[in-house]
């Protein structure tokens, strides 16, 4: 049997979700596989939550009623989202509950239809006003008369039956919440040849709002969309105003949380919350508030730890309450020194897999491509050797030219071996756990002879080149468009990456460049 380290099975531990076969589930035929060019983007649970909170002023309903999203690593990925029965059942319950409560809220109803306070049960004009006003907010575009009238007619039937105009309002709310144009971000656009579809103003505003604010566009932005075709300058102005909103920072933070994927830590319970806090606080510090350089995510020489976590890492100077503590160890820097990253490949608590770590750095942080394991290889176990064998020896087959493993593993293992002096819980060590006569040299190679040892040197190498920066751009585009960028997106990626570099890695500037790039206003058939 070929020995190989785990990738497919356990390689995703530590992420909020996991991967599945490209194409989204076990679709047996191509026709049911959502393509990357989909014009239907099912809102994420987080987007439902925010949109409903904004329109109705009620928080917590999305989380209460809707099933959790899968992540791969982004919850916006269209390939892994369908309107499943569980989702639709939750949405229907949500709509029913919210219809009841919101229709009983005179202030809410009156805001969309002042006529409602004195409306008779058969007042079709007033129910039309309510439906089209609320509908515009929920559907993110004006409703057509053909859409409004069936709601009004059915709603009035119920209202008259029970002599209650409010019942008609309730029906309208409940129905609008299940309208496909609320449930999906629909990006039809207008075909303009070469598979390109030019989005209309509402579609553009909707893209901007969900990308930058993570929620539905408000009345002010929808009003702008109702005007003449948006110019690039207008898009820039709108984006700037959105980026000044505190929610934009939360959205940038959220993107990075998904990118780094550290939601489910497999560490002892007393370390879970401190480790999550350590990474969350670094991201907040760098990405929100008074701007620190984006690169500090990787280079920070301070970490947010409490006494327990500091003791665990062997750091001194922490208090009982978590606070920023200086690293004294020369090999530590930024997020890659955190337990949240270093526990990614934990095995037997402090064992590690150089392959899993190497793969994460290579693919997630540097966007390198590594071929999938061949079907004949059991990717589930680390290389089998005797128990007291040193790890370098056990992994020898991966590292020998001519071995069938070498081709792929040379792209992963040498990076992971450079981090071997950190155990699976983020502690520094120089000898292996099982056989303590095995010294760990910590010698790593990022590829092309770029050797390093430890996190600090790895980060220095990554920041000296363009790969990390380019990958951040590519990941952001994936998050934005809901699918992995393809060759057709290369021009846009190149433009954005060069301006990101020129700006000194100003992430808000990157967002601005992204949305003002001509490609942002297109949906391309792929």
């Amino acid at each position, binding site marked *: 049997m070929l020995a190989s380290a785990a990738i497919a099975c356990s390689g995703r531990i530590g992420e909020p979700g996991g991967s599945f076969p490209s*194409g989204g589930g076990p679709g047996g035929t191509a026709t049911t596989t*959502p393509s990357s060019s989909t014009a239907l983007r099912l809102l994420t649970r987080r987007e439902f939550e925010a949109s409903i909170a904004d329109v109705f002023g009620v928080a917590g309903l999305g989380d209460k009623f809707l099933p959790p999203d899968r992540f791969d690593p982004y919850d916006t990925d269209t390939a892994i989202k369908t309107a499943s029965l569980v989702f639709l059942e939750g949405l229907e319950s949500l709509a029913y509950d919210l219809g009841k409560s919101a229709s009983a809220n005179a202030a809410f109803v009156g805001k969309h239809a002042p006529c409602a306070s004195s409306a008779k049960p058969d007042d079709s004009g007033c129910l039309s006003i309510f439906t089209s006003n609320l509908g515009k907010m929920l559907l993110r575009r004006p409703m057509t008369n053909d859409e409004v009238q069936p709601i009004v007619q059915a709603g009035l039937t119920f209202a008259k039956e029970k002599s209650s105009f409010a019942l008609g309002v309730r029906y309208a709310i409940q129905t609008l919440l299940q309208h496909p144009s609320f449930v999906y971000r629909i990006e039809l656009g207008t075909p303009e040849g070469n598979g390109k579809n030019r989005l209309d103003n509402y579609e553009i505003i909707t893209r901007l709002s969900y990308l930058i604010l993570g929620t539905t566009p408000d009345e002010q932005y929808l009003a702008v969309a109702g005007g003449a075709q948006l110019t690039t300058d207008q898009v820039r102005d709108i984006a700037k105003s959105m980026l000044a909103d505190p929610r934009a920072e939360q959205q940038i933070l959220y993107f990075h949380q998904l990118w780094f994927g550290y939601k489910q830590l497999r560490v002892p319970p007393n370390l879970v919350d401190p480790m999550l806090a350590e990474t969350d606080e670094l991201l907040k510090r760098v990405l929100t508030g008074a701007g620190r350089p984006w690169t500090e995510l990787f280079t920070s020489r301070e970490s947010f730890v409490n006494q327990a976590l500091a003791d665990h890492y062997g750091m001194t100077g922490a208090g009982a309450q978590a606070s920023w503590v200086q690293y004294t160890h020369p090999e530590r820097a930024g997020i890659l020194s955190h337990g949240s990253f270093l526990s990614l490949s934990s095995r037997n608590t402090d064992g590690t897999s150089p392959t899993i770590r190497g793969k994460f750095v290579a693919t997630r942080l540097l966007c390198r491509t590594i071929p999938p394991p061949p079907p004949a290889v059991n990717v*589930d176990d680390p290389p089998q050797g005797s128990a007291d064998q040193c790890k370098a020896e056990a992994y020898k087959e991966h590292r020998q030219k001519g071995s069938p493993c070498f081709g792929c593993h040379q792209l992963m293992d040498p990076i992971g071996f450079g981090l071997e002096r950190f155990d699976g819980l983020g502690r520094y060590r120089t000898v292996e756990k099982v056989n303590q006569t095995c010294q760990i040299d910590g010698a790593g190679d990022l590829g092309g002879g770029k050797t390093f040892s430890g996190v600090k040197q790895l980060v220095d190498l990554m920041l000296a080149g363009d790969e990390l920066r380019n990958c951040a751009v590519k990941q952001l585009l994936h998050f934005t468009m809901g699918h992995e960028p393809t060759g057709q997106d290369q021009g846009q990626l190149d433009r954005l990456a060069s301006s990101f570099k020129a700006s000194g890695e100003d992430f808000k500037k990157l967002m601005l460049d992204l949305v003002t790039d001509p490609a942002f206003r297109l949906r391309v058939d792929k």
Partner: protein
Amino acid sequence: MTKKLSRRFFLRGAFGTAIALPLMDFMLNDNGTAYAAGGALPCRFVSFFVPTAILGSSSNGLSDRFTPKQTGNGYDVPFCLQPLSDNGVKDDTSVVSGLFVPPFKGPGGYNGDYHEYAVRSTFTGVSHGWQGENWRVYGESIDTVVANAVGSQTKFASLVYQADPTFGTYGSVSTHKEKSGGGYWWTEPQTSPTAAYRALFTNFTPPTTGGGGGGGGGSTTPPDDIEQRLRISSLTYARDEINKLKARLGASDKARLDQHLTNIRELEKRLAPTSTPSNPSNPTGGGPNAFCKQISFPTSDPPKVGGTDDIDKRVQLFSDLIQVAFACDLTRSVSFAMSDKLTGSGMVHPQWRNIGGLHSDVQHSGTQSQLDDANKLFIGMYAGIVKRLKDVSEGSGTILDNSVVTMTMEGGKGGREADGGGDPNHSTDNMVMLVAGRAGGLKAGQHIVAKDKHPAHVFNTALQALGISKNLGEISGTVPLI
């Protein structure tokens, strides 16, 4: 088939959806196949899946403390099966050992992605192919096959639950064929106990003691159904708008909306009026089943404990729902998975949290007691479901007497050198399944060695016991439990 029945067996929804009352199991199913003789009470099916793959064997140097040594009645109870005795369901539960999923000879020989391959083949009875970079699924899982046959008779064609609320690498273990697109998909499981509770009791009020529709529903007074009509009308509107939208979309987006429409249809059925159920336990009339009642239930899902999802509590809540769903005859097919993280990769539980993960740390390199304790924990969860069904009286026995409750794991023990195996941690050899209940005359409380039979043979036995004349996937034949 329904046309042959008297109108009094149905309540017609405002939008034309008809839902049969319970007690329809003497009817013919959609395929025109008669139910088993004497099946006057509804037969139910539960498939419980646990993401463990490993039993002790010579290849991993551990003892097998899972498979009984004695066969037939009165088998011995190894350490891992102790919860069957503790819950008083050992004599209701058969052990089938020696099962084997033949390896798929993919490019390069041995089945590489063991986990997905083994589980999909187990649940569908279909060999799965390697396409390009991915394993593909070509079959419907056992719970779906059951639901297709009997699901039209209940409010819920099936319930698909998963205790672990976070998703893993592979979709859920339940798969179905899309009615519109033709492809096979995994079925999104319900992972929220409170959402599952809400769904069960939407538009359904359990009968009060002594009331109900004894005698077949003829005495049921139609309720004021405006709430149902309101809800179904909104779905109808959504369906119309989706159909309008479809005309403007490309083929793959149309297929996605077809899935949406299919699910709306199922939702309409769930929302259609349901009368108080007649009494499954007494076809000639009388009061409703005492266990069919509004159970007390938390209003929010169990909070995390020590950063970990409270799997134990979630399993308990879902098990309670399965009990009440069967007592009220709301469904007859349940898929309940612990996790879709095959072989427990990334699945968290306090029992192994401190030693790492269930997959590599417990199953690949755990000690005897770590492995045994994990397996015993899962058997305890299974036994808890079986016990809940045994607790519910029905006719002259219990609901368990009219049920088949299977427990399936991912793998077995050993490994065949001849198949390129010999891998101590990944073997589809000597797999064990548990089968509880006596539906259709199942023999309970046996240990049967079904050497080299496929797990689908056991599911075929379950189908036979349920009165469903079908084979699972490509596997024909049964194991002798009837």
